[in-house]
């Protein structure tokens, strides 16, 4: 997997000349289901054997993000999109593959060496009820990352920084003395965003930041994220399952299925001409406000478990266009003229228009 990934890479790197801010190469992550060493030992056929089972959360993902981009990763639950976000942030260690940030490989760095990168990349989580420490005031919550990353700053300077970031996300100054539970979901997410912005990052990983919020509040938070992007020149890796949000927010979209990227394209291209059969099915399933309800594409069966991955294309069992090749050979992402890259034998062969 890694070998093929590095083979195809030079071509794409030459196409977009500037060095990407973030580069993910051949990323794989699996989680063991088998417990510790002793639990893995089994007695089989009179012999003691060691057996391990894994959840294959990510199976070879290549992505790069240019400065100023908002790359949205979409997919259904269990497709590995959150695992990608967490691995990029260094919250999980990849099983194999590499993550490069601004030209420097970061996935093998020690905690100490990672610290400067931690300041430059920040994360916003899905559930603002769980991501704020209930025993800290908002002021403390916002000061903590600044103190950690700038231990030499004076108390006054830290406070000034907090005041500034609070003003920029629309938090009233008197919120500082209060605790997380005193705020509504939308207000908490605002605080979580303020915490991420407090150390002046350049790259934000947002994992479903608005999914837990009500519609009218979603718009407020999405506006805030877009304002921050413009004012601070931020780059986003935005994880979501909501395609309407993607169409609005993202500059590029990566669609994931069962731990693999099946299509990457500029947002407008993807929504105008989705290529991959899974992308098409996903897009046809969005409930629309319009009256003319087009029949959505029904997929056969359900997402297979990531414990026993299907052979060949991970989507073949549910794909209406699958043939013998799809069942055997894993499709690679192949660049197309319109700037999209699609991992589908059918699209490559021209079987799927």
């Amino acid at each position: 997997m890694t070998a093929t990934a590095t083979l195809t890479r030079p071509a794409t790197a030459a196409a977009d000349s500037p060095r990407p801010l973030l580069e993910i190469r051949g990323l794989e992550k699996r989680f063991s289901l088998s417990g510790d060493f002793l639990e893995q030992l089994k007695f089989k056929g009179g012999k003691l054997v060691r057996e391990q089972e894994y959840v294959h959360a990510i199976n070879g993902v290549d992505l790069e993000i240019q400065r100023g981009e908002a790359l949205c990763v979409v997919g259904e639950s269990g497709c590995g999109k959150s695992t990608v976000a967490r691995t990029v942030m260094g919250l999980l260690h990849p099983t194999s593959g590499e993550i490069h940030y601004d030209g420097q490989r970061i996935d093998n760095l020690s905690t100490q060496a990672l610290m400067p990168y931690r300041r430059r990349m920040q994360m916003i989580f899905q559930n603002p009820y769980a991501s704020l420490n209930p025993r800290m005031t908002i002021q403390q919550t916002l000061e903590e990352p600044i103190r950690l990353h700038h231990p030499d700053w004076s108390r006054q300077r830290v406070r000034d920084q907090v005041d500034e970031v609070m003003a920029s996300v629309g938090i009233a100054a008197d919120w500082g003395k209060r605790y997380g539970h005193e705020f509504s979901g939308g207000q908490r997410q605002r605080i979580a965003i303020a915490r991420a912005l407090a150390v002046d990052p350049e790259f934000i990983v947002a994992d479903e930041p608005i999914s837990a919020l009500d519609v009218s509040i979603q718009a407020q938070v999405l506006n805030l994220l877009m304002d921050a992007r413009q004012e601070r020149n931020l780059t986003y890796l935005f994880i979501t399952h909501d395609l309407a949000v993607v169409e609005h927010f993202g500059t590029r979209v990566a669609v994931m299925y069962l731990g693999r990227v099946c299509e990457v394209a500029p947002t407008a291209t993807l929504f105008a001409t989705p290529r991959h059969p899974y992308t098409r099915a996903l897009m046809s399933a969005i409930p629309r406000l319009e009256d003319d309800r087009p029949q959505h594409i029904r997929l056969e069966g359900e997402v297979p478990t990531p414990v026993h991955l299907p052979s060949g294309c991970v989507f073949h069992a549910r794909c209406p266009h699958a043939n013998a090749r799809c069942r055997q050979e894993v499709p690679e992402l192949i660049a197309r003229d319109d700037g999209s890259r699609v991992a589908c034998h059918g699209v490559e062969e021209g079987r799927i228009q």
Partner: protein
Amino acid sequence: MSLLEVNNLDVRFALRRGDVKALRDVSFTLDRGERLGIVGESGAGKSVAAFSLLNLIAKPGYIAGGSIRFDGQELNGMSDRALRRIRGNRISMIFQDPMMTLNPVLSIGEQMIECLKAHRRIGRREARAIALRKLEQVHIPSPEARLDQYPHELSGGMRQRVIIAIALLLDPDIIIADEPTTALDVTIQAEIMDLLLELCEKHNVGLILITHDLGVVSQVTQRMLVMYAGRVIEQGPTREIINDPQHPYTQGLMNALPQMATPGSRLNQIPGSMPSLDNLPSGCAFHPRCGFVTRPDGSERSACRTRVPEFVASGNCRVACHMVAEMLDQERIPAEETPR
């Protein structure tokens, strides 16, 4: 007469600091085979409305007033015994989380048979045959095998199908579905919604669909209610409300959707958030967030702050808004004067 008629329903929660009015003055009707959507954000009272229809409000909640007439019978104040003959039998419910609804220690078949035997004098074998037929109706592959499986062996989408099959077991007149697809992925959601629609049409079952997703309401229902802070603020044919929302809150809700704005531009957000029910603003509960309290000429509509708006008819819709009422009044006066 409609199959279900709800009039001036009032639901309160008796808390130590006083009663919280979770539902105020809610009225709607549902005809046989009709599909009604109840839309609102969390805390708007849409689930309370649905639960109170079958008196499933848990203490300290209670129905403080109003009437719920179903097929000529008054459900409010009915004894538990009598109500049990309607619950699950003539009106059944589908809940949000398919993981929580099914009993994890009973097989699918056992749960279905249990439900049938609770309502009918029926033998095991016969009950099993009905269960099998219902699983077939919800398009579950190899239903025979599924009957002996346990909930954890099924995926989320399959579980929700089983729950729909259970809801259909006794051929109800109405199904109340409380956010039935919120916990599911979009592709599965589309399938489940298709299934509900198909079954309701085929068996002429009424559906009360509670959701926060305007897209889902738009595709499944014929009429809808929009709720805000415990009150219905707009109701009418779904298509009319979606195409031309009258109430500023409904308009705000629609305009806040990302698909309503050009990609990359700022979204039209509604400022502020829904007030908590024990501390409602005076007058119209939406007025602190509403952009229409001030008239275009700069004067202020004081009624918004002081009086709870009454429903006014606008087309086929009914809207509770002082601004809409005022605009309708202004249109009406010149219209009456011109013929003379």
